């Protein structure tokens, strides 16, 4: 069974901010308001305006955040949740729309097995209880990109409940202390995505694209167990990594949004119930549409879908067609390695520092890059880690590139590190080779080394001659050494290196010089 691919998209979230003042009139962490997104079910937190009794003047109160999250991960399945339409990004508008997606009367939903498997997988990865029986509900609201006038979701009895998301971050001096935190997972539910409205203000018309309508989403609801934007961001990132381990994901909107709400409150504004979407280009969230005050979604059981029944090895009916049933235990067996385990393995296998294991996993594709280099090099893991995390990542960040866009391939880096490992080149020469590789002129490290004459001088005799010549040419410095100035030898080493065009190992030079000076 191929691992269902998951892609995280536009996370909705449930924020609750609590105002703390000197008299502790507001209990820390008490949720007194929240927003929830339009198509995202009722929030478990009471919906009321943020500031009710008093409006603080700027700076008068400290605001403490209590963050709950509703994260919507788009399930990367070949077809939609309830129809056979294909799922593709950036297809021509309305080219992936079945009769069901367009809500033609008389059409009925047929549940996509892949999406169910993805939900079970995610539930297991998040330590959830998988409900052997779950139900689908209709959530009603009128919106132009919701053709049926309702969204099919799982409100009453979702597919997975009561899980936990363990996330860790590095703190303390040097960020070497790993702190583990847990956010409770309230539930994971399967639901349909809506279509897309394109507003043409000039002609005052709205155009509807239903390509996305009916695409399967996993809604992961995290309890408000996170206390700041950083925690929330880390939790989301960890979830994203978990989903990636089962597939792929992206998006992050936590930090900006919490700061915006704090600013808004301090400026005396009110937080409206609204859905905000994250604009990665602007680096901020923007309002999507009004929440229309108190929306009553008039939930109702979806009568066209029988209860979704899942089985385990024990309850699997004898002689059941494997195509017709889903065995939770089988999915559990096929669960891929989760990021926490991967990090632990890195630490154990390579003696890597925990914070390095975090960095390796946090950048998309970096771990794979690292592992590919490891496969082809004899260099020490610590060396490889340092080169990948410092040099490669540094170059990538500087030019704002993704790992997949790196002009230096894992093989090239491995070859470079091999040269370094067998002392064919010096560290500084290696840096130079790397820069050449980055320019991506199609040359191998060996070619660059030979063209630029960067090989280390291995000829002991030649080196001795060079040392001798330098000592002859600088009698004053030699005298200084002999008088006991410990720094003077470094000058000699520098002069010899210069004479070798930096191609000699300074420790070897030092050895020769010391020998000669002592004699």
């Amino acid at each position, binding site marked *: 069974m191929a691992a269902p691919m998951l892609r995280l998209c536009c996370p909705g979230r449930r924020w609750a901010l609590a105002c703390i003042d000197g008299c502790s009139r507001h209990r820390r962490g008490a949720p007194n308001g929240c927003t929830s997104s339009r198509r995202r079910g009722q929030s478990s937190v009471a919906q009321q305006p943020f500031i009710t009794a008093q409006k603080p003047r700027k700076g008068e109160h400290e605001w403490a955040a209590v963050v709950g999250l509703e994260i919507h991960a788009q399930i990367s399945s070949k077809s939609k949740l309830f129809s056979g339409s294909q799922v593709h990004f950036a297809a021509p508008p309305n080219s992936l729309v079945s*009769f069901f997606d367009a809500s033609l*009367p*008389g059409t009925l939903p047929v*549940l996509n097995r892949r999406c169910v498997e993805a939900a079970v997988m995610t539930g297991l990865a998040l330590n959830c209880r998988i409900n052997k029986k779950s139900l689908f509900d209709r959530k*009603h609201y*009128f919106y*132009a990109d919701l*053709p049926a006038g309702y969204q099919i979701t799982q409100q009453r009895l979702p597919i997975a409940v009561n899980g936990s998301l363990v996330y860790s971050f590095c703190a303390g001096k040097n960020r070497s202390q790993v702190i583990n935190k847990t956010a409770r997972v309230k539930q994971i539910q399967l639901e349909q995505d809506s279509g897309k409205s394109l507003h043409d203000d000039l002609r005052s018309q709205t155009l509807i694209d239903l390509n996305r309508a009916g695409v399967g989403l996993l809604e992961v609801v995290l309890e408000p167990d996170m206390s700041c934007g950083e925690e929330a961001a880390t939790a989301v990132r960890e979830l994203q990594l978990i989903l990636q381990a089962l597939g792929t994901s992206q998006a992050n909107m936590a930090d900006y949004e919490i700061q915006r709400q704090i600013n808004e409150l301090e400026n005396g504004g009110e937080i409206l119930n609204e859905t905000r979407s994250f604009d990665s280009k602007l680096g901020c969230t923007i309002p999507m549409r009004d929440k229309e005050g108190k929306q009553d979604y008039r*939930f109702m059981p979806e009568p066209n879908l029988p209860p979704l029944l899942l089985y385990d090895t024990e309850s699997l009916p004898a002689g059941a067609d494997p195509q017709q049933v889903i065995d939770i235990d089988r999915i559990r067996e096929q669960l891929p390695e989760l990021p926490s385990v991967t990090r632990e393995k890195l630490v154990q296998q390579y003696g890597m520092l925990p914070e390095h294991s975090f960095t390796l996993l946090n950048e998309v594709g970096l771990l794979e890059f690292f592992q590919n280099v490891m496969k082809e090099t004899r260099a020490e893991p610590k060396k490889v880690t340092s080169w990948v995390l410092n040099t490669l990542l540094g170059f990538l960040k500087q030019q704002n590139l993704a790992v997949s866009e790196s002009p230096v391939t894992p093989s090239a880096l491995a070859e470079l590190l091999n040269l370094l490992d067998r002392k064919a080149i010096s560290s500084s020469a290696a840096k130079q080779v790397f820069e050449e590789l980055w320019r991506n002129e199609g040359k191998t490290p060996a070619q660059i080394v030979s063209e630029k004459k960067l090989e280390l001088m291995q000829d002991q005799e030649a080196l001795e001659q060079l040392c001798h010549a330098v000592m002859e040419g600088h009698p004053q410095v030699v005298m200084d050494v002999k008088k006991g100035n410990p720094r003077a030898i470094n000058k000699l080493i520098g002069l010899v290196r210069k004479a070798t065009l930096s191609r000699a190992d300074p420790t070897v030079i030092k050895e020769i010089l010391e020998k000669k000076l002592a004699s």
Partner: protein
Amino acid sequence: MPLKRMHFQFCLQTSYKAAIKVSAALKQGHITPTELCQKCLSIIKKTKFLNAYITVSEEVALKQAEESEKRYKKGHSLGDLDGIPIAVKDNFSTSGIETTCASNMLRGYVPPYNATVVQKLLDQGALLMGKTNLDEFAMGSGSTDGVFGPVKNPWSYSKQYREKRKQKSHCENEDSNWLITGGSSGGSAAAVSAFTCFAALGSDTGGSTRNPAAHCGLVGLKPSYGLVSRHGLIPLVNSMDVPGILTRCVDDAAIVLGVLAGHDPKDSTTIQDPVKPFVLPSLTDVSKLCIGIPKEYLTPELSSEVRSLWSKAANLFESEGAKVIEVSLPHTSYSIVCYHVLCTSEVASNMARFDGLEYGHRCDIDVSTEAMYAATRREGFNDVVRGRILSGNFFLLKENYENYFVKAQKVRRLIANDFVTVFNSGVDVLLTPTTLSEAVPYTEFIKEDNRTRSAQDDIFTQAANMAGLPAVSVPMALSNQGLPIGLQFIGRAFCDQELLTIAKWFEKQVQFPVIQLQELMDDCSSVFENEKLASVSLKQ
């Protein structure tokens, strides 16, 4: 007139009552599918005033007949339904043929796909004569509340009824006193009853197939929920809707059910188990049967005539050796109010898609999307539909959900359990009336509003939908007025074949008379003229 043609004329009114017989004639070459199709088309034209059809798909039917004829010539007939004219209620999607639900909302809507049941009939070579009239979105029990006007019961023009009326020397204008067909599948019932086709699809949510079948002297079958695909049936109440079958005899209903039944990958609520084709045996011995008579169905509103026929039927079974016992379905009286809550709630939800955006009617207002929705829905739906949407949304409000919807669901379970208890006690089928009385004149019917009528008329039929059980109405006899009265058999879930077997035995015993429409057929032009006048005067 050539012999063959005379034979045909004869058969149409008598022995061709059944599709099964005409099928044999087709196979033997006594008639060709095209001749049969043309004959039905001419009857459709002659009986246009019945308003049975919303759309007559003449070209499609003739083309299908041509194809069928080729198959017969090659000896490759597709089966019993090859070349047989059928009609389909206008709430089943038909590819390329307008499907309106008798509503302004879907006027001009041409579905791009066939409902599974339609496709299955076409795959068997059946000829689609057209789409039949109904109450708007199947909400009603008279076939009087559609945007294309009411359907007239062919029995209004039968020799049997007219003679009785003459005897009673009514001096009022006969033609202004036409009868309703019942509903909401009244168009389908009228179409079959008036010989415009041999079988028709109805839909049955609370009795919408059985009720008009009883009023039009037909067999009306509501199969078990989940036995027949709903894909393509424009829903009223998803959890109760079942495609219904209207025919002139039980054997025909069995043939059609045999074609329609079975799992549909497009409808997740259909049963997974394979369904074998139905072969309806002729029952000779009923002595091993146990017939249940639910005492709660003996209501004061039941007409004395229906009541006496009901007990006559019970006696018939008893005299032939069957065990007939009184049983109790204690929650019956809650059924209607419970149905009202569940029905309107699902209606509110199902109708949400009609917003004028993707298909169907759209108003001219473009101030805002919301204004467009509101005006579109106001223009598109009639009062009955809007009323049900309003109450349904009320029941689904967060503050009301527990008190109405959840309670109604619980009551529904109790009603279903009533049936389980009775069937577990050894009862094979239940015998009940289908309707309170025979068909009433339109003028009489419209004295009450749609809601009141639906509540009254669904009383005997609607519990079977709550429980998902198969039920069939079989015409038993003519009333004193010369109008058909049907009785209903309710069977165990998915025991549709057993149910039909008993219905077939009963049908054979009672020998219900054939409708005599000779005068109508011979001189329909004058009737048509009169009808036109009548309907104009009624509206004023």
